[in-house]
C-alpha cells in the first residue's frame, strides 16, 4: 500500500484533475438537477390532468430506468446520426434528466403534505397561481425536502463515477488508469473508495448544518 501511495504521488496531477472533474460534474448536476426538479414539479402541479400525467410519466420513466442506459444511448448511439457530444456534455444532460426526476418526486411528496387550506387562503387573498407557487408552495416544499435533496447530492457525488464508463476523465477513471499501470488493483480501488468516503463525509456534515438551519420548526420531515 505504501509503495502504491508513492506511485500515486508520481501521478498526482492526473489524480488531482480527475478529482476536479468529479467535483465539477457532481456540482453541476446537483444545480441543474435541482433547477430541473423544480421545473418538473411546477409543471406537474400547475397544469391540467394531461400535463400532470405526462410529468408523472417522465418522473416514473427516469426513476425506473438505469442512468447508464441513457448515457450509452447518447454517447455510443447518437453519433450514428451525426452529433458526437463530449463525455461531459453527455453526463450533464443524462444526469440532469435523471436527477430532476428524483428531485421532482421529493418535492411532490412534500407538496402532498401541505395544508390545502393554506393554499386556498393564499388564493383567496388574491395571489396569482404563480405567486402562490413562488411565495407559499416552493419555500415550504424546499425546506421540507432539505434532507431528501441533500441526500440526492450525495448520490450525485457517488454516481458521477458512472461517467467513467463513457470515458469521462473523472477521479475513478484516473484511479482505474493507475491500477492498470501499476497492477495494484486492490490498492488503487481501496484508495478510491476511501476518497469517496471522505468526500461524502464532508457533504454529510454540510447537509446536517443545512438541515439544522433550514428545516422548518415543528414541521414533519419529508420522507
Amino acid at each position, binding site marked *: 500500500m505504501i509503495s502504491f501511495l508513492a506511485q500515486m504521488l508520481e501521478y498526482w496531477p492526473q489524480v488531482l484533475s480527475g478529482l476536479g472533474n468529479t467535483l465539477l460534474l457532481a456540482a453541476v448536476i446537483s444545480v441543474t438537477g435541482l433547477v430541473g426538479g423544480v421545473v418538473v414539479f411546477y409543471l406537474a402541479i400547475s397544469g391540467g390532468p394531461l400535463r400532470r400525467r405526462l410529468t408523472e410519466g417522465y418522473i416514473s420513466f427516469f426513476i425506473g430506468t438505469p442512468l447508464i*442506459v441513457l448515457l450509452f444511448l447518447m454517447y455510443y448511439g447518437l453519433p450514428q446520426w451525426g452529433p458526437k457530444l463530449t463525455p461531459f456534455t453527455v453526463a450533464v444532460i443524462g444526469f440532469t434528466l435523471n436527477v430532476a426526476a428524483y428531485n421532482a418526486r421529493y418535492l411532490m411528496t412534500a407538496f402532498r403534505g401541505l395544508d390545502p387550506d393554506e393554499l386556498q387562503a393564499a388564493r383567496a387573498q388574491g395571489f396569482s397561481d404563480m405567486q402562490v407557487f413562488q411565495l407559499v408552495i416552493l419555500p415550504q416544499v424546499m425546506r421540507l425536502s432539505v434532507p431528501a435533496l441533500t441526500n440526492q447530492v450525495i448520490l450525485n457525488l457517488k*454516481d458521477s463515477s458512472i461517467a467513467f464508463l463513457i470515458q469521462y476523465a473523472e477521479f475513478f477513471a484516473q484511479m482505474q488508469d493507475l491500477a492498470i499501470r501499476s497492477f495494484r488493483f486492490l490498492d488503487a480501488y481501496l484508495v478510491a473508495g476511501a476518497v469517496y468516503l471522505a468526500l461524502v463525509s464532508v457533504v454529510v456534515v454540510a447537509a446536517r448544518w443545512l438541515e439544522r438551519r433550514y428545516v422548518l420548526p415543528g414541521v414533519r420531515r419529508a420522507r
Partner: protein
Amino acid sequence: MSFLQILLQLTGGVGYTIMVTVACSLTGVVVGLGVAMLSRLGASWLSAVLGAFTFIFRAVPVLVLLFIVFFGLPNAGLRVPPLVAMMLSLGVIAGAYLAEVFRGAFDSVDASEVLAAEAMGLSRFQILRLIEIPQMLRFAVPGMINEFTTVLKYSPFAYTVGIPDVMKEAMSLSATTLRGVEIYLAVGIIYFLIYKLLVTGVWALEKRTRIPGLTG
C-alpha cells in the same frame, strides 16, 4: 433489423438481469435485517460498529466496491465469481440502505405493544419474531420497493464483470449493427417494464398480507 427484432434480441439477457437483481436484493434484505436486528438487540458498542458499517457502505459508489471485490481481491489471492461479486458489492450496499429502512420501521412499532408482550412473559427474541418483525416488514414496504428499484437500476454494472445481462447484449448488438439509439432505447423500455413488474409485484404481495389499520 426492426425495432421489434432488436427488442427480441435483447430479451436473451433479461433472465440474467432479473437474476442479478433478485440475488442482490435478497442479499440486501438478509444483510439489512441482520444489521437492524443486531443493533436493536445488541449492546451500544455493537450499534456503533453497525452504524459505522452502514455509513461506509452507503458512502462508497457501487462501481468502486464492485471493482474492489472483482478486480481487486484477486491481488490478495481471492477470486470471486461475477454474481457473487455483484452480491458482495451491490447487494451489501443495498443491505446498508435497507438496514436504515428497517431501523426506521422498527421504530414505528408501538412501544406499548412491546411492553405488553414483555408483561406476558415472552422472551426478547420471541417479541422480535412474533411482534416486531411482522409489523416492521409491513411498515418497510415502500422503502424496500425504493431499494429494489435502485438495485435493478445498478444491475447493468454486471456487464463490467462479464455477466451477459441486457446491457451486455445491447453492447454487443450495437457493436455489430451500429444502431445504438434504437438499441439503448429498447434497453430503457425493457428496464422500465421490469421495474413496473417489480413494483406491481411487491405491492400485490403487500396487498395480500395487508392488515386493516396497520399501515396507511
